[in-house]
């Protein structure tokens, strides 16, 4: 099956600072959940930012469905079908839950279709319906993450990229967040996930990618990554996957 997205030897960094990504490559297959793991500073979040156009590519290319994304702004990348939820969840704190969802469909021209889509999302995630008229800043951490992830589904994107969705959440809430990942995957959305909780991330993933020092060290089926003794030792805290 042809790759949906390809990251080819990307070199990128912040401003005029040193390169964080030093030739990172990645293949994203349609319909699968991909989990990128690696130590702090490996360039995992930077890679997602480079794909979505938040960072300029100094070298290399990002190709989506055969077309280069190089030089596009984040809003232009979104219109091609790639949504990104950064670590900070990227909500609008003073806007209501419903308004936040509406912003998720900002690029939709058909207002009625947008409202229908929001209604469907609210039916699926009842907490968002219950809190629809409250400012997003009043939601708990887990509810905010639910809102941020559900909001990406408004557009029915082809790829959703999630940066550390479990960050700062209690274990019970983390499981709920990964359930949403599952729901997204069942809807046919391809997921690219960066996760510090590597064991959890790989359990829900089909494909694992190990990144270190801005380069891709290894990629393969998630169970193979989980079972590799070297990767367990270096990146999974020496623990064997259950």
């Amino acid at each position, binding site marked *: 099956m042809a790759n949906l997205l390809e990251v080819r030897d990307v070199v990128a960094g912040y*401003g005029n600072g040193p390169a964080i990504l030093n030739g990172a490559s990645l293949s994203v297959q349609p319909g699968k959940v991909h989990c990128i793991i690696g130590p702090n500073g490996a360039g995992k979040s930077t890679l997602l930012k480079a794909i*979505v156009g*938040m960072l300029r590519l100094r070298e290399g290319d990002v190709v989506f469905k055969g077309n280069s994304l190089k030089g596009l*702004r*984040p*809003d232009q990348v*979104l*219109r091609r079908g790639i*949504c*990104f939820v*950064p670590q900070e969840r*990227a*909500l*609008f*704190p*003073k*806007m209501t839950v419903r*308004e936040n969802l*509406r*912003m*998720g469909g*900002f*690029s939709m021209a058909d207002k009625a279709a947008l409202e229908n889509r929001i209604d469907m999302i609210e039916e699926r995630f009842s907490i968002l319906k219950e809190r629809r008229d409250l400012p997003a800043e009043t939601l708990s951490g887990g509810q905010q993450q639910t809102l941020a992830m559900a*909001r990406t589904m408004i557009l029915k994107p082809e790829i959703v990229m999630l940066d550390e969705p479990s960050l700062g959440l209690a274990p019970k809430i983390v499981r709920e967040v990964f359930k949403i990942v599952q729901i997204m995957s069942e809807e046919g959305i391809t997921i690219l996930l960066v996760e510090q909780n590597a064991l959890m991330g790989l359990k829900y993933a089909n494909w694992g990618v190990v990144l270190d020092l801005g380069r891709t060290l290894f990629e393969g089926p998630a169970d193979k990554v989980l079972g590799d003794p070297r990767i367990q030792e270096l990146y999974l805290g020496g623990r064997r996957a259950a």
Partner: protein
Amino acid sequence: MIIDIIQILALGISLGGVYALMGSGLSLVFGVMRIVNLAHPAMIMGGAYVAYWAFRLAGADPIAMLPVAVLILAATGLVLYKLVFEREAQSARYSEMTVLLTFALAMVVEGLLGAMFTNTQRITSPEYATDAYFVGDVFVPKGQLFAAVTSVAIISALALFLKYSRFGNAIRATTQNREAAQLLGVNVNHVCLVSFAIGVGLAGAAGALVSFVFSFFPSKHWEWIVILMSLVVLGGMGSVLGTVLAAFILATASVFVGFYFGATWSTLTFFVALFVVLLVRPQGIFGEKPELA
């Protein structure tokens, strides 16, 4: 005593309405672009001169000339943004640069207005500007009241636009989280361009109203910047609602001070408020608490 308080409130609220419009454009531009537009009062001056000369040359009512002042100033805002601010948007020293740029811009506008219209004090004088409504012993100058009502109508229209229109939501989203707005498909550069034009257009509207409420001359904008900064800081940097609320509070406070201690002290109210707010609650009424580190 009661009559005095009602009089202070009547004058303060009507004056606050004028200040609210003067400050709302400044607040909007700061919220969206993080630009402290020191040239904003100079733009208000520009609107005032548009109304003044339309009145002098054609006897046009300043309130009727308001849309013309808005259009001229908004167009000026579009050109200025493209020429001056857009290229600085990617600069690492964007905030510092825009302070210097807007300071320089204020000087240029002042110089141009001085060269074109001299430094003579001006004021438009439609009939209502020299009349007042009396309710018992309480009076409200008609000009100030008309200006306040027009201001409130414009600010209400702005609030409805920001709350209910698609582009208004994009402006609010960009104000609250610029990166998130871009990730959701908002072209933030376009939002900044239009917001700057709206902000400067509001300055034009305020100028048309100010032209019959205060006398003005090109360098008077330096006096206004202190007043407007105190409104924006008390309201919370970037909060239009906060600025409007602060305008009513501080205008009433300044009328109170003027009433009991003399008019020369009333401007001091804004200086003191600016100082106290920065000391006690730097985030103002509706602003976010600044993060340390």
